[in-house]
């Protein structure tokens, strides 16, 4: 079973590995930080956010200051998809931004149909319906189950 963790990485729960969602490349153990298995690039932020004011005239140019800001870009080592971007202070360790409890996830996913597309699962009206009239949620318990 595959669990969609982000736009670009998924977990193969049977083999407990991270995978690239673009090319299916196996990254590494799902019990570790997926970023360990990526290619990382230390980007000067001014290459992305170019100065809008003339840097010869002004210190503040509507562009990040590379002395205090670096962009870490994380790429799939196989297909080059940019899986994540992190803005941080130069010298900082990349953040372990998303860590899933694999054992708990396996248990939780038992009997569930996994989401296979980011557009699935969106139902912004369901809870409102439940809250107002549907009788399957905790709301009924509060009301003593009587109608």
């Amino acid at each position, binding site marked *: 079973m595959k*669990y*969609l963790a*982000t*736009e*670009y990485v998924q977990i193969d729960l049977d083999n407990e590995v991270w995978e690239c969602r673009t090319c299916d490349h196996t990254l590494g153990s799902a019990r570790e930080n997926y970023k360990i*298995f*990526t*290619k*990382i*690039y230390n980007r000067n932020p001014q290459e*992305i*956010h170019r100065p*809008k*004011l003339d840097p010869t*005239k*002004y210190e*503040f*140019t*509507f*562009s*990040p*200051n590379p*002395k*205090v800001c670096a962009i870490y*870009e994380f790429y799939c*080592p*196989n*297909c*080059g*998809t*940019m*899986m994540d*971007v992190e*803005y941080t*202070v*130069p*010298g900082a*360790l*990349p*953040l372990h*931004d*998303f*860590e*899933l*409890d694999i054992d708990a*996830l396996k248990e*939780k996913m038992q009997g569930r149909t996994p*989401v296979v597309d*980011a557009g699935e*699962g969106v139902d*912004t009206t*369901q*809870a*409102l319906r439940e*809250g107002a009239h549907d009788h399957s949620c*905790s709301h009924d318990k*509060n*009301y003593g*189950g*009587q109608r």
Partner: protein
Amino acid sequence: MTETNNTAAAEKALLDKFLKDNVSFIGPDKEINKNHHVNPRSLREDELLKQGVNSHKMAEIRSNLQSALDETFGIAEQTVASPAASCGDMSTGYFTPDGDLAIASTFGVAGFTVTLHYAIRWIMKYFKDEPTVGFKAGDGFLLNDARFGGIHSPDQHLFMPVFDGDEHIGWTVCAMHEGEIGARDPGGMGPSIESIWDEGFRGTPIKLVENYLIKRDLASLVQHNSREPHVIMADFKARLSACMRMERRMKEQVAQYGVDAVIAFMRSNVEYMAEESRRRVRDLPDGTARVSMYMDHTMREHAMMRTNFNFTVKGDRMIVDMRGSSPEIANRPINALTTCLCVGVSIALAHQVWPDLPCSQAIIDCFEFVLDENTVVAASELVPTALSMQVMFKIVTACEIAMSKFYYGAPTRYANTKAGWFNQPQAVMYGGINQHHDSVGNMCGDLNGMAGGAKFNEDGEHSIAPNFGCRTDTGESEEAEEGLPFVSVISKKIWPDNVGFGKFRGGAAYSYGMMRFGDQPFGFQTICGGSYFPSTMGLFGGYACTTYGVCRVRGKNLFETFKQSPDLWEADIFQFMNEQAVEEATYESLPSAVLFDLYAEGELFMQSQGAGGGYGDVLERDTDLVVKDLEEGVISHETAREIYFVVYNEETLIVDRTATEAARSAERKARVNRGQSWDEFVSEHVTEEPPADVPYFGSWNGSEELYAGPYGKGLPGQLPLIMMPDPKDVEIAQLKAQLAQQG
């Protein structure tokens, strides 16, 4: 022996009574402020709910009270004088007698009411049975000091108890951003505030209203402490009107359904929200989503202050660990009380994650907050917090991003997965005398013009609403010009590349410029960070917004110049600043926290609202959307070519799709080639200490010790009081040193 014990007990009781009756000052209550959870049921509530209630009747009462809240929200919004509240920076709500928010208005800013349970609990504990205070029907309490509940002192709230006969059955509340409260700077939250004593009028709960009438003596006291006494009175009346209408609507429910049903509804709605949010958390995958962001300015000087927000789902609990965040800075206004951080989480959930749920603090009943005292996320009561939203807005973004990650693979979502909404209060604050000879001091409604984050399936909205309240309005330039002595020379202009780039881009945001008109004493200030380091992050490979600053042109009356060169009316910030077409003028580009100063006629003050974060890999952006961005002036040709790797004709904007695919493919290969493995990257780029020339505050690479800029480092709780030197003194010392070197 027994007699001796009895005597000792009697003496102790006498002493306890004496001490209780002779408390010289009742201040903020730490125990109340540490408890964001729902109160236990009262006996009355318990009896009613154990009897069982009719869920259809409950739904009818909820709909009716919700309508009443939205009706009263409208009444207040249309009658207030505060510029922020008139743009919807307010909220109305019904509370249970013990102080749990039962239901809040769907419009406006949920954050105002979700933090006022603290204040009601305080009133119930200290004033309910206090012979000199107490309360009855028709009474109302005013509050503005966040140490008793709320976000920061420029906000003002009115609480009115509702009675059915002699029975106290609830509270109505009308809460809003008032603004001017006589602080050191106009508008109540200026950058130069250095202590709680600079924060202006610090109102504990005061019984301002008796028998539905505003007490003139107390009103005069508050008015006298404000630069805008007329605005204060207008808004007292607006809040009172709203609360009275809410009371009337609640009594109508009592008349129709009976008091038992109304009390049962209030409590059951609180419990529904608490249980439903717990159920939703239980549905998420167990794990931790970590978000670290930086505040890059104290409002007086540059400082890189780390904020850590680690969200952990464990069963049906959500633990928010904020340890490692920057120590508090005792003489700067950017600290936040923990109560304020709870609000930030509630706001993100209410507006961005679970917008379908009724809103109350009950939605964070299953949340736990772990933090170190005396840090920017858990400030002590003795440090200024007037700009606490610098921290609070960060946790709003952090919660949005963390929840987007938890929800990505979850079976049911209640809102779109999206990147960060822009999170800086990018508004100009003003003060002085206006063209009507009134004293004024407040902020412009442009604060609400923040842009939306990119979503998983579409671009973010341009300058649409603040991150703290998606159902608000943005101030009109013409309305501001009617009451304030300036002309909007640059009025809401989109500029290229002010978006978070990605597969879907964040919304763009407008720039604006105000030129002083008239010779009254009148000036501006700003209160933002994000000039060195982007404030708002993207998601899943999307880039952040850029950085922003304040630009000003001074020393010349530009109205005279405009007469000679009318084309300048069309100029934007960057044309003014880069071309420097006005001779003899001074051009300055500054960080986004600018101290208050008076401006002469014809001087120009400019800044920009900020963009939403991007979503996904830029190389996946549809080329048609890139061209659309070009056509609309949202991005530059450089960005289209060098970030999105689109090959096209710059004159016709016709895309060469084959060449574009080849360019993107080549860039993907280049990424693989230039990227380093984890070990190589860590070895080459990661350092044991923060950069020596960066004033860094907070933990570094997971250290338990917190760095504190010039104060060194230490374990939480063991750091000295951090008092930053006056930047002017620092500059003078530097100049003296230079002079000494020159002999």
